[in-house]
């Protein structure tokens, strides 16, 4: 029941990565495990000068969820590792 295509998931993360890069942040896909339906994405803020300028966690999480939902058949769980939490 492999419902998670890692390449497609990577493309979704890249889309959002492009968005946060404007503010110096970056998003990376850590794992996309079809067995657990868990997608882990890490937000890197080490190069960011204006923390307030980066999309808020909840907003980013929602955008990522929407982007992933278009590419994953069935349910999945997004784990966003965001240093601001």
């Amino acid at each position: 029941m492999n419902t998670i295509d890692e390449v497609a998931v990577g493309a979704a993360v890249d889309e959002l990565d492009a968005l946060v890069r404007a503010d110096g942040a970056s998003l990376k896909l850590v794992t996309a495990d079809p067995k657990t339906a868990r997608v882990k994405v890490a937000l890197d803020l080490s190069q960011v000068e204006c923390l307030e300028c980066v999309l808020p966690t909840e907003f980013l999480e929602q955008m990522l969820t929407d982007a992933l939902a278009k590419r994953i058949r069935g349910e999945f769980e997004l784990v966003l590792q965001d240093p601001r939490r």
Partner: protein
Amino acid sequence: MTAVLTSEQVEVSADPEAWHARSIEERWGDGAPLIPPTDDRVLAMLAASPEPADHVIGVLPPQHGVATIELLAINAVLAGCEPAAFPVVLAAIEAILEPGWNAFGLTTTTSSVFPMLIVNGPCRDDLGIDYRAGCMGGAGGRGSMTIGRAVALCLRNIGGQRAGETSRSVFGQPARFGMCFGEWEERSPWASLAQRAGFGADLDVVTVHGGKGTYPLADIHNDDPRDLLYLIAKSVAFPLSNLYLSGNPENGQVVIAINPVWADRFAVPFPEAEQVQEFLWEHAWQPIDLWPAHNQQMLRDRDRVANDGKVRLVGRPDQLVPVVCGGLGSLHAVALPSFGESQLQQAVVRRPSA
């Protein structure tokens, strides 16, 4: 070597609607369309069996019909099973025939109880056995929908179980069409149901539960794992449970399906499944004064009331059985209440040797 079939041959119409009408007239099915068990289909099923066609797996109550592998294969074809799933059907029937499952009582009772199959192991994905969102109905995996149905048809056609006749079930339940789901082992923080029973993680194992129905539980108000488990324990100890009818609280298990999100939450204070069971057991009781006077007397006569007035649902923690499955939407659990006079049985799925 190709098997030689010995079951009676019957000529039927090849027209799907005429065949459906005939199957209903002959009382071969459950009302839904069946796949005609032609020789080529039956032989394909038999090729997936570890035993030859004439091997007798047991005698199925209530009418004590002799269950040969051939007859079981015919019914698996009727149900729409793919041959690769046939060994799971055989394992489930083996488990049902264990005396502890009490097929003699369960196939004839007024209760709604029916075999509920829980599958562990790699075959879940290969066979389309649902264990994620909608796993107890609606997800539509071929294995889930046809393996349970094959078992139900075997009980009907070989065991002679017929509602209102040999089966005295007052209401029946949707699971009588067949119920089979898997455990989401990869999302379980605990050892799987099969592993806890001593089976290796690499094995395909079927657990058969004599379940009375699907009893839904929900909460949106409390994220505390202990509070939630406490409420689950109190809910499964409902006063009209079969487990309060018996004088023997040592028999029967309640399977408690826990969604992966709650399971993660529960695993923080209870990293082992046995700890969850212990906590559930500590709270799965009701005070004797919950019941009206007449029931109180019955419970006292059956020696079910402790000195402190607690009436425990079951005698031991291991009778409350958590299984992790379901979707990631959280908020819900499902209890599969016990008939009482039936013990969970497990069997390994065996395939033909190469």
